[in-house]
């Protein structure tokens, strides 16, 4: 597809596998919730306590945070920072890169510790990396055409 960025898609099965992995992780580390966000700022999944904030805005800011930190990493001679930690008085966030495609964000409070979150996250990141790689490989192979034949419907939407 010779345009800008390629598109990617995930099925209900992908979503089920991602959610399952994240639920197990949350249970193991006792965090409040986690979100999976793609590198362009689109929310892929939310698991755990439903956040009280706007998850769409949160996803966008997460991707921007990660992108800005990647550039900071380069300035000091690193290729990237594969994880970030933001500490608050009551709530903290830990963000980790997954396969250079998506970002896993974990929000936790004083019911757990950073050490436990980090420890349990490593396995989850490996597991998610495999899942996400499969999703992206399939997306590239299937190519464009998701809305093939929907030209009339698109025209009607903008009348």
């Amino acid at each position: 597809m010779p345009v800008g960025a390629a598109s990617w898609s995930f099925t209900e099965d992908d979503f089920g596998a991602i959610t399952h992995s994240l639920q197990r992780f949350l249970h193991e580390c006792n965090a409040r919730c986690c979100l999976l966000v793609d590198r362009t700022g689109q929310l892929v999944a939310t698991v755990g306590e439903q956040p009280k904030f706007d998850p769409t805005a949160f996803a966008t800011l997460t991707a921007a945070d990660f992108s800005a930190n990647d550039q900071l990493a380069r300035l000091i001679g690193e290729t990237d920072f594969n994880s970030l930690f933001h500490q608050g008085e009551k709530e903290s966030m830990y963000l980790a890169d997954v396969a250079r495609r998506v970002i896993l964000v974990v929000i936790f409070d004083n019911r757990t510790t950073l050490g436990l979150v980090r420890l349990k996250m490593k396995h989850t990141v490996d597991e998610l990396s495999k899942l996400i790689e499969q999703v992206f490989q399939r997306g590239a192979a299937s190519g464009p055409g998701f809305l093939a034949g929907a030209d009339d419907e698109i025209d009607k939407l903008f009348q």
Partner: protein
Amino acid sequence: MSMINYASREINCKIVYYGSGLGGKTTNLEHVYGKVSPDTRGKLISLATETERTLFFDFLPVDLGTIRGFKTRFHLYTVPGQVYYNASRKLILKGVDGIVFVADSQIERMEANQEAMQNLYDNMAEYGYDLTKMPFVIQYNKRDLPNAAPVRELQTALNPGWEVVDAAKHRVTPDPWHAGENLVEKLSSGEWIERAPYFEAVAVSGEGVFDTLKAVSKLVLKSLA
């Protein structure tokens, strides 16, 4: 990079408003935010300086309707226009599906517009994206100002057209938004060129804002067809 979510039945696309500083990119988003029903839009996020200049980006998610049972969600972003914010400007372009170039019509801003357009081409090329092959529209903003340059001059400076190499596309394509004008045509020199669709606007009053948004969104969805 559009994302198709079969689980929540959503298509998510990213549109970036690009252009020189103080051209009206944020004003475009503010108008959309003010006019669209709160049920179909999210929060307007602005990462701005104390003087309301965009520091990193503005962001507004809007739903534009349903196609084939999928909700179409567009994420609208602006970039900071000032020259020295190029690092953050480039970050916002990552994964973009459609571009709106907001040009300031004032004759004094011609050079700044051209510089921003060149910067857009350069930044896109660094990501390996070809601007001429993706949804791209130009908005000539501030048409109400007395010092606005004629559209013909703006077109010559900012939208002269790119060469159409593919012979299969060598056919005159009328501009659906401007009677008597063409998007693809043959010049007297024999060369075939294509121009980006353009729109005149006065973003502060909202004139042309939705025409621009609809056009780029439609092009983005058609690129998935």
